């Protein structure tokens, strides 16, 4: 295993086979990391939606001096013979971390409320001051008498391998408390994140809930300190919710999904870290989460980048197709039935139209020749237009009977929309779905009749009618 480089797939596959799942250490490590992934993701959903994504980062960095001070206090007390809880007692260190995290949160809100400094600036200031202090204290402790064995440096980047059974039980109990609280207060927290002012209007104590959410976020941060470390724990708060958001439009689905992604990345990161023991766990967990985020960002069906890009592209193509059809229809209409008084032209007349040149079509709309040709070829393949030879050498384009039907529908729809937008106010209250592509889909029949009449009066009724419409 030593000889295989860690970037090869072989390294991980061989490693996976060699993992001893009966080993309690490995089990604890994986379980602990999964728990932290779940708890952080659940709380992270609310931080993310509340627009507090950076708060977790500030709180986490601010936890470092708390850990150091708690360690120092315990050492000091033991040296004086006052009490001995063991300076590596996890509860003690986590309480220290939580307290200093909350102190930082208070500082941030104090600065933001009592000065003209905005919250993001306050976060940046408090984060760096607390973290700097933490690094100073950490360096002192590590150069002190018992420092090198303190193991406090694992709080920087996390070392899941150092988790033992009692640690995981501590983490598990905190994670359970946090998840239950979230479940119980689900509707209040949702309201807090969506519309705080309305919640206050209902008489719900939004200030209290906001503070409680902060304390819960501190809790989630504290759970992850040992495995992921202060520098990267905020990634576990934000990345899984951000990834989950791509897949769903409902909060009650987003939270379990984020928990799943968070737990999965926690587990994966821990396993990888067990295979490559010299690697810190935090970065591996974050990398696993980031992979899932990247997949979500790209491939999520509605909100993903590819889906959005594809939608944009196909809308653009559809608009170009429809525009070309409309232009050709209007040129044909103008040529066969000039003026507005001419009676409707039956479809047989189409044969008398000598066709429109590409220049005619381009003069209707500012498209490049390449784009126009592409669209026309597309329409030709669909059987909606045909090209006829012309003495000038440049072919001329004409609608086929099928194309006429299609173009008639498009033109009529566009002109009805136009009428609707012009006479919207006289139609009285309507329940309008602007996503609907046709006015018929949301207007009652009598309003449609009215619009058709308006279309006639404005001389906009399509005069070239396909067989089916006449």
């Amino acid at each position, binding site marked *: 295993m030593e000889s295989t480089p860690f970037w090869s797939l072989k390294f991980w596959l061989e490693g996976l086979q060699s993992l001893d799942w009966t080993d309690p250490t490995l089990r604890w490590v994986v379980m602990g990391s999964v728990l932290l992934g779940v708890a952080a993701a659940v709380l992270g959903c609310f931080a993310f*939606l509340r*627009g507090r994504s950076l708060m977790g980062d500030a709180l986490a960095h601010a936890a470092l001096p708390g850990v150091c001070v708690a360690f120092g206090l315990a050492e000091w007390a033991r040296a004086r013979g006052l009490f001995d809880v063991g300076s590596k007692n996890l509860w003690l260190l986590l309480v220290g971390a939580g307290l200093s995290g909350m102190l930082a949160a208070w500082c941030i809100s104090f600065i933001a409320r009592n000065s003209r400094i905005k919250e993001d600036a306050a976060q940046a200031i408090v984060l760096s001051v607390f973290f700097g202090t933490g690094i100073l204290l950490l360096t002192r402790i590590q150069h002190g008498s018992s420092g090198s064995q303190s193991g406090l440096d694992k709080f920087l980047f996390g070392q899941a391998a150092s988790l033992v059974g009692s640690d995981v039980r501590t983490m598990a109990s905190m994670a359970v408390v946090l998840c239950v609280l979230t479940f*119980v*207060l*689900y*509707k*209040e927290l*949702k*309201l807090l*994140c*969506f*519309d705080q*002012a*309305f*919640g*206050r*209007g*209902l*008489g*719900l104590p939004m200030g209290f809930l906001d503070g409680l959410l902060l304390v819960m976020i501190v809790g989630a941060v504290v759970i992850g300190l040992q495995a992921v470390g202060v520098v990267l724990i905020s990634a576990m708060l934000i990345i899984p919710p951000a990834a989950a*958001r791509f897949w*769903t*439009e*409902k*909060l009650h689905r*987003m939270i379990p999904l984020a928990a799943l992604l968070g737990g999965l990345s926690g587990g994966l990161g821990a396993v990888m870290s067990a295979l490559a023991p010299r690697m810190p766990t935090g970065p591996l967990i974050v990398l696993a989460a980031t992979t899932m985020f990247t997949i979500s960002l790209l491939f999520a069906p509605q909100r993903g980048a590819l889906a959005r890009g594809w939608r944009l592209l196909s809308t653009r193509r559809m608009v170009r197709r429809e525009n070309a059809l409309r232009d050709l229809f209007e040129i044909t209409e103008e040529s066969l039935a000039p003026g507005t008084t001419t009676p409707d032209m039956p479809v047989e007349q189409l044969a008398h139209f000598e066709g429109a040149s590409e220049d005619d079509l381009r003069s209707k709309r500012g498209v490049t020749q390449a784009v126009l040709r592409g669209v026309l070829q597309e329409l030709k393949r669909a059987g909606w237009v045909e090209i006829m030879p012309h003495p000038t050498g440049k072919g001329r384009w004409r609608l086929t009977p099928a194309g006429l039907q299609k173009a008639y529908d498009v033109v009529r729809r566009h002109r009805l929309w136009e009428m609707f937008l012009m006479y*919207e*106010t*006289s139609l*009285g*209250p*309507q*329940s*309008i*779905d*602007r*996503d609907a592509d046709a006015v018929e889909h949301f207007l009652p029949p009598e309003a449609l009749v009215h619009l058709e009449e308006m279309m006639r009066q404005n001389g906009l009724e399509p005069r070239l009618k396909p067989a089916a419409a006449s």
Partner: protein
Amino acid sequence: MQTENISPLEVQISESANSHAQIPALEVHDLTVAYHRKPVLWDIDLSLPAGNLIAIIGPNGAGKSTLLKSVMGLLPIASGWAKIHGKPWHEQRQLIGYVPQRESVDWDFPTDALDVVMMGAYGRLGWMRRPGKAEREAALNCLEQVGMASFANRQISQLSGGQQQRVFLARALAQQAQIYFMDEPFAGVDAATESAIVTLLQDLKANGKTVIVVHHDLETVREYFDWVVLLNMRLLAAGPVATTFTRENLQKTYGGKLTVLSAVADAVSLDDARQTPFARGRKGAKTFGEN
């Protein structure tokens, strides 16, 4: 508002509303509100009768929204008091329905229209209880009243601005309140939404509710409202539209913007032969003082 079982609270309210019709829906005494050192509302004394549609108008920065928020207890009051149906707001929360400004929330929040409307019931539900079938049906009914029933399951970011506004109105209806505070519900909405809101206001009035609306379109005040409150950091006038919405009062309220205003004021005083709503279209002077 057609819920099958009326809670004891509501019975008590409707009785008190009948027997003490003289108790004002909103009574404000000596109200002063300050942000930091600068007061934005001075010594407001106000008494608004129940069962009316009331517009609060005034130029930008006149403190219209501030008045609304402070009487609901959303902003701290520097001095004075406000009573809703004869009692301080914190005792009357169940009576208050609130429509905040549409821009105050992030519409990309992962939820749908029906879910937002159900939030109106959260106050009644109390802690820990989840909205159930009854709340869901009541919420659907409220969406129906604003003509949005077919959009119940639409993600809220997929709604137009006017539709989002109607979702907010439906949510206030779901609060089953006696007095409604609406912060600029007509701002930037389409004609369909505007008429839906007007219809809704009429319905609420017909059911004996009081509606207090921050409004910015002087042209429609006479058409939509019974009462008007003219505000510009101080209270300039308050009373029935017929006697209070006068050119003189408008000039006092809007001061410097007299030229634009006189055109509207003339139109207002001349426009006695009322045309039917919406036939007139939505011309000029729409966003007053929004420069």
